[in-house]
């Protein structure tokens, strides 16, 4: 397969970037998008040009490291797919593909397609945990957990923190990520103890990191590779109101 690639190249955070055209041939249709990028980078290195910097790690859709805004959508055209799980057969032979970094002021570009998503880490540090200060592990069945809540908590915990929600949102809102991280704990008895402090701290940190507000367009849910539901955002709002007013 042959592709015309229009890739965002940016030397560092302080230098403005631009789209650069590349042509690539002999791409196997079963290659993943990242493997295609590897082929391109190898060719660039042979030519003595700097390779395109991009984030990746597990390449099996569970780490949340790969990003990329492909043809106008985070992680490309498929639903519930990370870029590493996107295959070249999903594109037409000869297609022009735009590849850009996730864009949000809270996710500054470090180089080319690599963005700094450490704002998410700081939100987690603000309260995305359960404090276990002493003792050994308790017997798991000591605390009964409603099956429905356990399932919802597990669904929320599927969030890999990739930042596609922020990239897709017209307001660069991190609401889907933060609400998933709040929900996975708020739904379980172990998370109830610090529920109020948690939601207040994480919501404040989310604002401080400069993310926008949620206007319920649902773009995040549609683009989320883990199909996190925006019902989590309603839960975060509920938790926030209760924590603020009581």
């Amino acid at each position, binding site marked *: 397969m042959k592709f015309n690639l229009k890739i965002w190249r940016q030397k560092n955070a302080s230098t403005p970037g631009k789209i650069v055209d590349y042509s690539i041939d002999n791409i196997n249709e079963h290659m993943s998008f990242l493997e295609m990028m590897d082929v391109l980078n190898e060719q660039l290195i042979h030519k003595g040009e700097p390779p395109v910097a991009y984030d990746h790690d597990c390449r099996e859709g569970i780490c949340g490291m790969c990003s990329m805004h492909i043809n106008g959508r985070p992680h490309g055209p498929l639903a519930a797919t990370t870029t590493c799980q996107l295959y070249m057969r999903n594109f037409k032979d000869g297609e022009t593909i735009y590849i850009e970094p996730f864009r949000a002021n809270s996710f500054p570009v470090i180089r080319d397609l690599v963005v700094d998503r450490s704002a998410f880490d700081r939100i987690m540090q603000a309260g995305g945990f359960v404090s276990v200060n002493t003792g050994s592990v308790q017997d798991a069945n000591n605390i009964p957990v409603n099956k429905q809540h356990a399932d919802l908590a597990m669904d929320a915990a599927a969030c890999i923190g990739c930042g596609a929600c922020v990239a897709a949102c*017209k307001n660069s809102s991190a609401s889907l990520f933060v609400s998933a991280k709040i929900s996975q704990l708020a739904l379980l008895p172990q998370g109830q103890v610090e529920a109020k402090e948690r939601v207040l701290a994480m919501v*404040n940190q989310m*604002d401080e990191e400069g993310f*926008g507000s949620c206007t319920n367009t649902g*773009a995040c849910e549609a683009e989320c590779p883990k199909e996190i539901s925006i019902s989590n955002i309603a839960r975060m709002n509920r938790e926030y109101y209760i924590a*603020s007013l009581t």
Partner: protein
Amino acid sequence: MNKQIAKNGMLGTLIGRKMLMGITGMFLILFLVVHCAVNALIFVNDGGELFNKGAEFMGTNILIRIVEVVLFVGILVHIVDGIMLERLNRQKRTVPYVSHNPQANSKWYSRWMGLLGILILMFLIVHLKHFWVLSRFTDHIAHSEMDKLPGQETLFYEMKEVFENPAVVLIYVLAMIGLSYHLMHGFQSAFQTMGWNHPKYTPCIKQAGFWFSIIVPFVFALMPIAMYTGIIK
């Protein structure tokens, strides 16, 4: 866990600001129900007798007048908070995407609520000037044909006069299309913002919101059309 939690009050965070949008939006939805119901009295087609009685009640009842003040505060909060949030949100991505495909993941009217709101605001100014200023701040409006003083007209008569102009009718109909799309997103969005999301009730709310945003603006739009075409005499 965190010492700076209480630093921001509820209205100091974006979620709190959005809650204001949700509460005022819901209040404005209730207002639309009342406004639409009272105005629909013109469809009785009795020369405006019943409608004028309704207008008199709305203009003289003390409770309604108090709620009217609350309504204006609500509208003002909805507008000012909405514009401020829209401005803030637009500053969050200063380098735009070169290739952007938002229609793949969201409805256009959910992304253009600010613009639709501005259009409705522009209509609101024209609309208030047409009827509200006239009936609240001048002596021009009589409560019925019977106790009309010289130089006075009933509100029904004023409606007929305003809607003789086809340009005005067009503005009103276009504004109602804008209102319809604003409600199409806003109705269910307000519930979501307030945290009222439930697997059993959210589909009902979405259905109700869909039909509400079609029926209410449609009934409103019918009023100038019916008056212009002479269906209502």
